């Protein structure tokens, strides 16, 4: 199945979810469902973030080969994550993770390549 088709099917599914309750008030969701729905975003964001980061770190490490450079190659990404999370924790502004993390990554990469 090519990516266009996957996206179209996923989009159709999303549309069905949007339309699911419109037009009828007979179907009601259990109350316990409400609190679970609020947890979908944090759970999804975390799963996506950690798996993507694991992939990036594994790629960086494997590209460097199995030696001391394996660890060194992952340092810029790890520093970027630490800087991004630290700044967000300090400021409470989510977008600062990108604003602090990316420059840290570029700086660390430049310093390690000297």
């Amino acid at each position, binding site marked *: 199945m090519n990516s*266009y088709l996957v996206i179209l099917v996923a*989009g159709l599914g999303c549309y069905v979810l949007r339309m699911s309750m419109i037009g009828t008030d007979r179907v009601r969701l259990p109350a316990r469902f409400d609190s679970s729905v609020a947890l979908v975003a944090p759970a999804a964001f975390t799963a996506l*973030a950690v798996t*993507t980061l694991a992939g990036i770190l594994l790629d960086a490490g494997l590209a460097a080969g199995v030696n001391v450079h394996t660890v060194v190659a992952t340092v810029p990404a790890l520093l970027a994550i630490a800087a991004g999370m630290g700044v967000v924790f300090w400021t409470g502004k989510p977008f600062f*993770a990108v604003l602090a993390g990316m420059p840290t990554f570029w700086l660390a990469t430049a310093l390690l390549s000297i």
Partner: protein
Amino acid sequence: VDVAKRIRDTNEGKIMKNQVRRDLIGGARAMAPWLLGVVPFGMLIGVSAAQASIPTAAGWLTGPTIYGGSAQIAAIQMLDAGAAPVAVIVTVLVISLRFVLYSAALAPYWRNTPLWWRLLGGYLLVDPSFVVGIERYGTEPDRRRAHTHYLGGAVLLWISWMLAIALGATVGAAVPASLHLELLVPLFLLGEIVPKLRDTATRRAALGSATVALVCLAVPMHLGIAIGIVAGIAAGSIAVRRKSPATDDTNGPAPADDETKVLATVPALSTEESHR
């Protein structure tokens, strides 16, 4: 008599037109603050689409089809990683489950409306348009005016979202690979999670999701992400139920009405659309 009737009809028509215009603009104005967060997020999705191995047009297509920031990111990231179609679709649907709640909350207001309106209104339903709409439906006794208000905000949001993704995709395609923009999305996602970790249920959901997703990293078809999400929701839900056993369906106090309950879920969810 005919002339007088015609003049009266013309005047009423003008008044109606002005009212519709005012309501459309009112909805657009109510949506404007959301755009401050929505536009950069849309651009980020465009950049990730341009950097991914899938065609950039396919990445952009997630905008008009899936139309929900986090689900779009999930689809792009998973397709880029080579995940199985079923895993991508299941993940997108799990992330988009909240639309069922929004749909349930708006259903009473859209009853007896024409089918075309429900099809269009439902398509435009996403976190910011839901909030802008439901607030108006709660205060405006004239349903037709509330519908127009919803439409004004929702259409502005849709146009802004599509343009932002297209702009991000254009910019992202011109950025050299040495900048490693693939780090943008995970950083952004972590930034969204960190401020919410003070809440016990959210913390457990994040921790459970991260742990299971990492353990399942080697699971074929990238199903580990979907498994991680479900595990995280389960872990967080257990924390919620332990925290408030009195709010059980049968024993708890009288539940709030649908709108209040659904609105209570929006701030936590809508961050993915707006990251205010």
